[in-house]
């Protein structure tokens, strides 16, 4: 593995092996001293050209738990605001001695370009509405922990799928691992063409309350998600996971959300805080899967785990 840019096309065996490795890091993180020396002396640079709290902190925590050093970059205070090109920024950070780059960017494909320019291993931390592969891994890991396996599970992804890189990555990962995926959204929030996608669709959340997993997405106001709806209350009435709807779900089912949540819109506050909401395990697992990917990319030795 040279880069980790997308889960599309990643074979089941590869995904499973990454999840197995992640399980080992879950164990590491539960130790009294949750740290291994695997990547001592290596430097991971965080290039987040879009605002991020959880993904960025999660990657930093993962790198540090592997004993790697980290460098951070934020566009607001950087030379990008002085007109420097993305290419020059990336090459500058490479010249400082980064061994791997974690890249988040609003433009589809930006991490691919940076990988091309720098020749360094690049981890895609989210590009436009395209891919967010470590999110897919952490979600798959969370589902696997809860159900033991994704094979045969019914997963409904509800919300702003059109503008969601999380959805695109999760659809690929979940279906590769054997789950059946149903997309639930008004047509204005569905991708314009689903030909060839391994998914079913439904026009209201009430149709998928019998799912094993309901995966909720935020309306992405920053990508134009809100302007394609008549109003948020109308959205809630057809697509919001209200307490009343949650009560109609099976007691074995779970609710997931990649965050940040808009409580009272796509998810009722009581649902978000319910024991069958896996939001917190998702966040915790994020650190483990990012450790696994960094470990794979930077070639850590298995003995160091």
């Amino acid at each position, binding site marked *: 593995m040279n880069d980790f840019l997308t889960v599309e096309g990643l074979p089941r065996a590869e995904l499973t092996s990454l999840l197995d490795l992640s399980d080992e890091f879950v164990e590491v993180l539960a130790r009294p001293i949750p740290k291994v020396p695997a990547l001592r002396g290596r430097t991971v640079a965080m290039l987040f050209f879009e605002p991020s709290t959880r993904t960025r902190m999660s990657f930093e925590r993962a790198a540090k738990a592997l004993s790697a050093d980290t460098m951070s970059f934020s566009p607001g205070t950087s030379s990008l605001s002085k007109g420097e*090109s*993305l*290419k020059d920024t990336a090459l500058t950070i490479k010249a400082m001695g980064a061994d791997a780059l974690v890249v988040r*960017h*609003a*433009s*589809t*494909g*930006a991490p*691919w*370009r940076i990988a091309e320019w720098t020749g360094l291993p690049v981890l895609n931390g989210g590009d*436009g*509405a*395209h*891919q967010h592969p470590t999110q897919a891994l952490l979600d798959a890991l969370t589902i696997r922990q809860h159900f033991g396996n994704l094979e045969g599970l019914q997963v409904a992804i509800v919300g702003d799928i*059109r*503008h*969601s*890189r999380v959805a*695109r990555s999760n659809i690929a990962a979940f279906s590769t691992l054997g789950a059946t995926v149903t997309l639930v959204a008004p047509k204005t929030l569905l*991708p*314009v*063409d*689903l*030909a*060839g996608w391994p998914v079913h669709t439904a026009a209201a959340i009430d149709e998928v309350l019998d799912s094993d997993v309901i995966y909720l997405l935020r309306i992405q106001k920053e990508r*134009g998600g809100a302007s394609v709806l008549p109003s948020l209350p109308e959205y809630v009435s057809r697509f919001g996971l209200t307490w009343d709807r949650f009560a109609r779900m099976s007691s074995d089912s779970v609710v997931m959300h990649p965050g940040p949540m808009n409580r009272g819109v796509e998810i009722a506050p009581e649902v978000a805080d319910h024991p069958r909401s896996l939001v917190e395990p998702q966040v915790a697992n994020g650190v483990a899967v990012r450790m696994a990917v960094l470990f794979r990319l930077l070639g850590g030795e298995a003995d160091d785990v």
Partner: protein
Amino acid sequence: MMSEFVLKGGQVVGPGGVADADVHVRDGRIVEIGVGLASDRVIDCNGALVGPGFVDVHVHFREPGQEWKEDIETGSRAAAAGGFTAVVAMANTDPAIDAGHLARYVSERGADVGLVDVMPAGAITLARGGTHLAHLDELWAAGVRLFSDDGDSVHDAGVLRLAMDYLSDLGGIVAQHAEDRTLTLGAHMHEGAVSARLGMRGMPALAEEAIIMRDLALVELTGVRYHVQHVSTAGTVHLVEEAKRRGLPVTAEVTPHHLAFDHREIERMDPAYKMYPPLRTESDVMAVREALGSGVIDVVGTDHAPHAAAEKDVPFDDAPRGVIGLETAAAVVNEMVPLGPVEFFERMSVAGARLLGLDRHGRWLEPGVPANLVVFAPEVSWTPHHFASRSENSPFKGRRMKGRVLATIHDGAVTYEAS
């Protein structure tokens, strides 16, 4: 520049077909066509086609205002290298070509460079702003025949109708870059399976077709000559075909890149494939190829749109739109559309000259005709690595191509010879 030479051993293309013959050029004109002609200077054609120099109804030479991308001199060199002897330079310069003195600047700079006739297009609206008519009479007096706000549509139907009424008196051509921006906001590629997968906003085919549907109704009302720039969809082909059947004074062009590629090229997210209109579907590509073959699409327009390397070396969304095309156009058309030699020169030269009313270009070869010629070898393969253009933003860079320009003659002077 030499004033006398013989193009030796070529196949001269005429309206009835091709004939093995030499062409004797002297003082800017063809003086004789025949076998065994002699001169001090001989250009060996090795059996290549000898025909009227290509005419491009759609280029961007970026001067004035964006000379770091291209200027009239480097653009003219690119045109000559591509076999062109006349081009129409679009008006989306800085400032836009919306008044007579600006149009004269462009054509005079072209004449100073002297490699190709550079005809300025005129803007339809002031500063291409879409609200007030440009100085249409002045532009006409300065030699402008084709008017376009290219880069943008003229969106306002009322303004477009005024321009059409005004220009129908003069005989000017209203050319439209058809793109309803209310349907393409924030989009950089074709709306379809590929855009959905990449999570990119798409420009639906309808954004092009909706503008043309409306415009054709206005053409019917005003009687103006109307030219559809860079046809990219099967739906547009159908609209143009119907309009012609109804006898409307409509013509259309297609770019080489729309003949060659579909939207699957965007999967690599390489800005070398970013342009408006965007690369469409496979069936759209088939439709435009067929339409150029049948003549529903009259001419090839390269939409040669240079951008500096650094401007394109960014993520796809952030890159400027457009690709260069002059130096590869003839090869692409040769390879993508099965035309006989007569039809090939008709689409690449004769039809463009007729459209623009040029009497020095696009004329079948005979004694007395101005020597604006190209020697084109349809079977010769080559790979473009470097370009005469100041910019190299070509999706054909490094691709093997079939069909090579061996020499270009403009006003009796050799402006390009393949090495």
